[in-house]
């Protein structure tokens, strides 16, 4: 395939990832809500309970993936919405940088929290 035009940002990739993450999130988010509001009521959450769940590697991985996809999905969604409103040029670049940093920080902090919950530090 031929070269990529510089102006032709791979909007398609982000679009596709937004859909794929959405499809994934439907399942995990529903599970998450159900787990923490109906199975265990939020008011009954304790660190011990959390730790017990988190030490299950499958659960841990699912939650980390949940976090990553949600962060991407949310941040990309916001970025998209801003482009839709005609964000251009430097401002667009700045917004992108801020969003990437915020999203990255969210993931790093989240993973750290998850590790802490599992009691692995």
């Amino acid at each position, binding site marked *: *395939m031929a070269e990529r*035009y510089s*102006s*032709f*940002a*791979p*909007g*398609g*990739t*982000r*679009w*596709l990832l937004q859909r794929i993450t959405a499809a994934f999130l439907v399942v995990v988010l529903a599970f998450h809500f159900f787990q923490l509001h109906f199975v265990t009521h939020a008011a009954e959450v304790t660190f011990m309970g959390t730790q017990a769940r988190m030490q299950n590697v499958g659960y841990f991985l699912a939650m980390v993936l949940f976090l990553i996809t949600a962060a991407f999905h949310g941040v990309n969604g916001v970025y*998209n919405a801003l*482009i*839709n*409103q*005609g964000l*251009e040029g430097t401002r667009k670049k700045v917004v992108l940088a801020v969003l990437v940093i915020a999203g990255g920080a969210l993931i790093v902090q989240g993973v750290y929290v998850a590790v802490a919950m599992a009691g692995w530090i």
Partner: protein
Amino acid sequence: MSTQQQQQEPESQESPQDPEMKGTESPQQERLREKQEGMVDDHAEKEAEAEGETVHIKVFRYDPEVAAKQEPRFDDFHVPFEKGMTVLDAVMYARDEFDSSLTFRHSCRQAVCGSDAFFVNGKQRLGCKTQISDLEQPVRIEPLPHQEVVKDLVVDMDHFYDQMHAVEPYFQDEDTPDPADLEEQRQSPENREKIKMSSRCIWCGACMSSCNIAAGDNKYLGPAAINKAYKFAMDDRESEAIKEHRLRILEQEHGVWRCQTQFSCTEVCPKDIPLTEHIQELKREAVKKNLKFW
């Protein structure tokens, strides 16, 4: 009974800045006033004739050059109703009988030239294709939103045309048989059916005007241009290489991805073109193409 009151919107209309314009009436205003006064009885007569059935229309007025119209406003007209009357008929009547400076584009009166897309009772519609009797009165007629108003109902279409031209809207295969041989390029009836709806666009601009994304993002190609590109991209007569080139144009940042499936374009299109569907199909095509690594 007054047939034409000028209602100002917004309510607090500022008086013209130019001191000369204040107080004194320009000849045009004078004539306008005379005519309005004259219109009352003239019109009352007509009305009696037509058994009193009239249509009340409110038309957006603006003209940068005429003092009285520099501040946008709505004018009211009462037009005698006739069976089969369209919005275009009503504004034409108002222009020919009441105020010859009422300005709008129109030509074919049969929904093929695409000149008279207006914003009628809150929706983009073709004036000539909209029966007055289907609308709630008073019928409010405005220029297309999201386009600059040149005068009255006339909007600047240049941006729309630019977007239409931006998708290289022309057949590109050079490698066709010599027409003198009377040899056509073959196309299956199914393929022709596939592009049928997309080929009906009359460039009225209603869709573009209804799309919030196009309003926010000036670079967005917009539904009409994407649909135009769809017509070519889906036509089997063009080669794969050109189809790929077309997808390249469409998948730029301000191409198909900007569409947020608001569907308003599809709803207002007077030619019933399934615009959203076409845009979505192109998104999938573009993704498919990008996923092809082999």
